[in-house]
């Protein structure tokens, strides 16, 4: 386990801080799954984003909500 990976008690602490208290018997499995997700997603840290903005739609002003069929 690398130093960046969460231990089961750390996973429990951080999920609790996020508002999700976990039963004791789930700490290890959640830590392991979170570790796997982290190993996949952390590859994005290699990218040089420069001024690249995040994708995402945002429009000021509200459209009329009358379209259906």
């Amino acid at each position, binding site marked *: 386990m690398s130093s960046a990976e*969460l231990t089961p008690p750390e996973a429990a602490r951080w999920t609790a801080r996020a508002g999700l208290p976990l039963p004791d018997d789930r700490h290890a499995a*959640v830590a392991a799954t979170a570790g796997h*997700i982290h190993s996949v*997603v952390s590859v*994005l840290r290699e990218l040089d*984003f420069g001024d690249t903005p995040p*994708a995402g739609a945002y429009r000021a002003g509200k459209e009329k909500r009358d379209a*259906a*069929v």
Partner: protein
Amino acid sequence: MQPYELTLADAAQQIRARRLSPVELVDSVLERIDQVDPHVGAYVAVTAEQARGAAREAEQEAARGMFRGPLHGVPAGLKDLIDVAGSPTSASSRVRAGHRAGADSTVAARLRAAGSVLVGKTHTHEFAYGLTTPQTGNAWDRGRVAGGSSGGSAVAVAAGAATFALGTDTGGSIRVPAALNGVVGLKPTYGLVPRHGVTSLSWSLDHVGPVTRTVEDAALVLNVLAGHDPRDPASLDTSAVDHRPEREPDLAGVRVGVPRNYYFDHVDAEVETAVRRGIAQLETLGVHLVEIDIPMTRYIHATQWGLMVPEATAYHEGTLRTVPELYQADVRILLEAGELMGAGDYLRAQRSRTLMQEEWARVLEKVDVIAAPTVPMTAVKAGQESVTWSDGSTEAVSDAYVRLSSPANITGVPALSVPVGHDTAGMPIGMQLLGRPFGERQLLRVGHAYERTQSARSLAPAA
């Protein structure tokens, strides 16, 4: 030929000519459901009485000379993430026990207005968070996976238990089961088909689209589904397009990109052979093949997960805290672990998506369509969790199934899966065609032209 065996286009033609009654067609499909669904488990619920009532109304309208269009009187199955007024939207989950939709989703309302008859709700991998749909058996071999998450929709269409169906696609969930069951699946451009009233897995990746027996049928359904609805904030106000391909599309001059990297790496040899044969067939139709390089492949998996994992966890925030024990184990653990992903990772995924969209747009300036496998292998046996490739590396089955389809979810480009044969075990193989944003018409033209060169496909045995 029984009415349940008809394609949508053929059924529409016969209904229009008054050679087939919507009542006969719906009864035939309902009988077929009775015959095959006990074996394959495609449906969560079949609404036979309502369907018969709607079919009688469609028949009465036809008797008065009123036809709403090609979907008039044609039976459809809807993935059970799609709201139908008065019916539960179960998401194939115990979490949704007692649910009842108060109103139709936009797509259900549009289908009804077009005269389609809703025969039932089809199984999804729980809340669409998976690639196998374990409740449902493959239409060609029920001991193998249906694929997912729109497994019920694909199996129903493949088996003749629906003339067409709707699915949703967040990383490949229309195209994967379509490929594994030998039917056509279309993930439209992000924003083309409104998702109002459809349970979300991941807002920035979710799409709704058709599962059909032919490419022409997919175009007929897309014509009804597409169009702006401001109740979906991603819905775009685009001009109306008739997506139906001409009868004999002329593909001369169409540039088809064949990926040099990624799409043929770690792909089963029989799948590669069938897809390359399909591409060669396109060349005989006059397309110009162009070798292309897929950009940023190292970041596809990371970007897909960086977007999907926290968005799914956010959607389920309430019920994960109140009734976590009602989720299936595989879904619950992903939702819980998603609480541990930081905003920095999510924003990196969103910024990576921006870069990927730009890079893909450059590729799609050089070619009109990209042709590739839909999935790297055919349907695996139920319960198989990993696949070992010829170089000795192993990959989780769900990671493998989503690998070739998720780029279209990240970038939003349209993608179509078309059957291109079977492997030696008899399992279907799919070829994926990807196009420019809002380039569905070109995709459907190419897919239809290919399909015209093949003999008509038979229904899956499903028994």
